[in-house]
């Protein structure tokens, strides 16, 4: 609706009423403009400055950026986030969809199962990272347990294998987010027109074909939302890596978020850190802005 109640002759109270909506919105706007966009601007500036241990406003142009791109760890971090992001998003979506479909078959204990799949979302990785680290540690956790149980040849040492460590992080991350993705898909499945499935049954499609040809294509908006949410979680994943591997073994599990943190706070390279942060933001923006744009356009019609 529009900002109705045109009122030129009315008293101050009515004039106030007219301004109230904007007045009420303004604190949030001010907060966001300052604390988000102001800070982004500040960080962008820092990425062009000579900041080391503390901010320093001397302009050095692209110096920090070129150092960022020649940095060896940054290469690893980028590679990792790429592997991590891709596998994380794909696994969460595949598993989430699978669980949602299975749960959608008039399951008796659906409520309980749903809660079980969803609960990891409730826990911080500062909490579960410890458990995962222990669980996946070959000397202490799963591998030892299997050996104790008599399965001597069992081997699962990814956590300490620098080539595989990133995958253990993915396992934990997938464990945490699948439930959420499942809930999104479940909500989507519940929204599908039952008549359409009846139509497909009459058309003679077997169950799997109904899913593949009819239902899953209709969940497209949910796929999109899930990808956006997961991508942003992936890029922001910090607690997870810190709690599980601390970026190690070596730098094997460094990602941009840990890179930025370590450059800013332990390497006294705030300029590079800012550049990496701005780069992360740019990547997120490239992902999110088209999505936001389409979402907002949609709501117009």
């Amino acid at each position, binding site marked *: 609706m529009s900002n109705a109640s045109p009122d030129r002759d009315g008293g101050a109270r009515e004039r106030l009423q007219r301004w109230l909506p904007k007045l009420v919105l303004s604190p949030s706007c001010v907060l966001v403009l300052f604390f988000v966009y102001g800070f982004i601007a500040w960080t962008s500036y820092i990425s062009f400055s000579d900041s080391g241990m503390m901010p320093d406003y001397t302009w050095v142009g692209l110096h920090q950026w070129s150092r960022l791109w020649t940095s060896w760890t940054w290469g690893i971090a980028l590679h990792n986030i790429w592997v991590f992001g891709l596998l994380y998003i794909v696994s969460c979506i595949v598993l989430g969809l699978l669980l949602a479909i299975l749960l959608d078959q008039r399951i008796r204990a659906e409520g309980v199962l749903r809660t079980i799949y969803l609960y990891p979302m409730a826990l911080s990785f500062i909490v579960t990272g410890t458990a995962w680290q222990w669980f996946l540690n070959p000397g202490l956790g799963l591998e030892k347990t299997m050996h104790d149980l008599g399965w001597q040849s069992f081997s699962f040492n990814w956590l300490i294998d620098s080539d595989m460590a990133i995958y253990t992080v993915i396992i934990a991350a997938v464990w945490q987010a699948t439930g959420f993705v499942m809930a999104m898909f479940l909500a989507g499945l519940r929204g599908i*027109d039952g*008549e*359409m499935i*009846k*139509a*497909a*049954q*009459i*058309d*003679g*499609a*077997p169950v799997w*074909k109904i899913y593949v*040809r*009819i239902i899953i*294509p*209709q969940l*497209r908006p949910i796929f999109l939302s899930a990808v956006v949410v997961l991508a942003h979680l992936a890029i922001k994943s910090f607690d997870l890596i810190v709690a599980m591997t601390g970026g190690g073994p070596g730098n094997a599990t460094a990602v941009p978020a840990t890179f930025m943190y370590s450059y800013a706070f332990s390497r006294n390279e705030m300029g590079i850190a800012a550049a990496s942060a701005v780069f992360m933001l740019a990547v997120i923006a490239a992902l999110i802005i088209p999505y936001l744009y389409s979402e907002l356009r949609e709501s117009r019609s």
Partner: protein
Amino acid sequence: MSFLHINNVHKRFGETHVLKGIDIAIEQGDFLVLVGPSGCGKSTLLNMIAGLDSISEGELLLDGRCINDLHPSRRDIAMVFQSYALYPSMTVAGNIGFGLEMRKVPRKERREAVDRVARLLQIENLLERKPGQLSGGQRQRVAMGRALVRDPQLFLFDEPLSNLDAKLRVDMRTEIKQLHQRLGTTIVYVTHDQIEAMTLASRIAVMRGGELQQLGTPQAVYDDPNNLFVAGFMGSPSMNLVKARIVEQSGLPVAQVATDGATLTLPIVRDRDALRGWCDRDVILGLRPEAITDPASANHGEGNIHEAELPVALVEPTGADLYVVTSLGGTNVNARMRPGTPLRAGERTRFAFDVSRMVVFDPESEQRIRDAYTADVASLEATA
């Protein structure tokens, strides 16, 4: 042996008994319309015919063969849904051809079949569009096309026109009627719309609370309702139902209706024999609005017209007609008069009652009071 035979079919969802023994038989080429209030079980019955709901009790025979346990895709039945249920991610051609594809019809044949149906429905130019890009009427056609392409033995329609606006609904109705005349397929059709039911059906089944109330031709259901429910349900504006008392006058039963002050006496023409037994008992008279008119419009040729002067309570011109409301037996009664009749609320005017169309009901059992003869004819007609 009838073509589709619904034989004492029951449906229970857990505790709730939704269909309580439905018996309907129709012939090949029939157009059966199911009507009834919301929740009376129309869609459930349709789903059971399609095989989408299981049958709790009873038997479903198609062409003499019991299909109770046949998979929906093997029943040779096509269905058109209220929401059309088009597959949003496929093109129109894909939608129409999907059933054939699932039946492993070769691509070329499929293409031909789709083209043929598209031509029939005049949607050739839409074949490459997605359903999202179609208007309501076009979607409806695609949904029909999906059913037609398979050339099934039986078509099921579940309120296929209710999502269209009034004008389009009238057009599509005519199209369905013509399609039925042309193809001669058997159709079971659910609708809420009176006019749709009356104009399309060769048989109407009126349902209520999981029970069949009446099965017959549209005219029989309209003119010869079995009970108060059917009488009140069919027709818009609905039949006037007026409390009256049967008394004997000069050896014949007549109906006496209280009006303001006076008593209106209406002669009994139909079901006279049965009503003889009802003397000095209360009954309910049923008179369609179009059977109460201004004297000039009355059907003096065939009808049996009885005139009376009554006060006008309300005048409702619809353009095509003028509905005049008066009060009879304590209830408002609608009379349909020629538009332009100069009347105002509060005036008195002459009403012409076509008593040959009057039907009488037992207020207790709510059943029609009928001569044995007409009852026979009605049931004969119903199974004809």
